[in-house]
């Protein structure tokens, strides 16, 4: 009996707290909006919409599918994928990428065969087939969208840095 009474009291308090907070909420929400407005414009794909608002998602950009190699921004960069890879099967049974990019099949498709580093294990030994740690291609290689960048890119190429340092030395 006592327990029930305590429960009832607790419920009453909870309800009261809820009522108060719902009155307070609008002001809290507007305060949050202000904070978000000051933040960089690409905080999330949702943009600056408040949490309780439904946003129309942006149209999915077309995948770059021109089969033209892109320049690498730095020597170690994994080359980007210049074609559509949607619906490619890449699981423990089958690797669709290797259907064209494996050593044995690259000539048939005239695709670049994966480099020998993909056959190396962590001890630098060469294996007969792609090393398990390099099996999932999309861990490093990504396709590109034909969209505009969301933020300005301030990346400086290493060649540019070398030039700058030589110029500095000359001074």
């Amino acid at each position, binding site marked *: 009996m006592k327990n029930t009474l305590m429960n009832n009291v607790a419920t009453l308090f909870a309800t009261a707290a809820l009522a108060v907070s719902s009155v307070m909420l609008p002001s809290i929400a507007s305060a949050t909006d202000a904070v978000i407005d000051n933040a960089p414009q690409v905080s999330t794909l949702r943009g600056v919409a408040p949490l309780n608002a439904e946003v129309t998602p942006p149209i999915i950009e077309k995948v770059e*599918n*021109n*089969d033209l190699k892109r320049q690498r921004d730095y020597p170690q960069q994994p080359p980007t994928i210049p*074609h*559509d890879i949607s*619906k490619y*099967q890449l*699981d*423990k*049974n*089958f*690797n*669709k990428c*290797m*259907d064209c990019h*494996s*050593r*044995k*099949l690259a000539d048939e*498709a005239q695709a670049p065969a994966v480099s020998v580093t993909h056959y190396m294990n962590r001890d630098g030994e060469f294996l007969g*087939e*792609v090393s*398990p740690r390099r*099996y999932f291609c999309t861990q490093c290689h990504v396709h590109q969208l034909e969209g505009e960048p969301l933020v300005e890119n301030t990346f400086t190429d290493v060649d540019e840095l070398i030039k700058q340092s030589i110029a500095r030395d000359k001074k």
Partner: protein
Amino acid sequence: MNKIIHLLKLVWTILSKPAVHLSLGFLTISGFIAGVIFWGGFNTAMELTNTEEFCTSCHEMRDNPFMELQTTIHYSNRSGVRAICSDCHVPHNWTDKIARKMQASKEVWGKIFGTIDTREKFEGHRLQLAQNEWTRLKANDSLECRNCHQFDSMDFTRQSKRAAKQHSSALANGEKTCIDCHKGIAHKLPNMEGVREGTSPH
């Protein structure tokens, strides 16, 4: 033995005698009507076994190939045209269809004895099941693909560079058929070790 011969003789005497009470017209017309009903009924029943509801009424098909189909372009795409099981797995031509339906008695056997009634068993048979279909499509020059995908209506200029190159050369000169390259487009591929080198882990 004698009894059987006696019975056969009796049936033959009945069949070889002309009808005494029924007119020739009645026999002809009723025979015709019965034939129409039988033929219609037979084909309707067979069409029923070609529906998606029928195929997915067994959990083996519903939970494995049908689930996988749903993520592919043959189920969901921009124009909403889609293929059901029988579009690809049953020939449309009547005689070929009957031949395939007779082969399917093996599948009834498999259903009764639970050949693929768990996910593990299905995975174990995946390569064999896939190879059956690849062999069939290879032998009939990908007939079921071509029921919808007409080579003459392919506009190479609307295809990607690589697709146009392959279609205008290897496919056009008959060196290859659809299934040679388009494997695993409606269902997941099995481990291809020994089938296509370098594409599957050992």
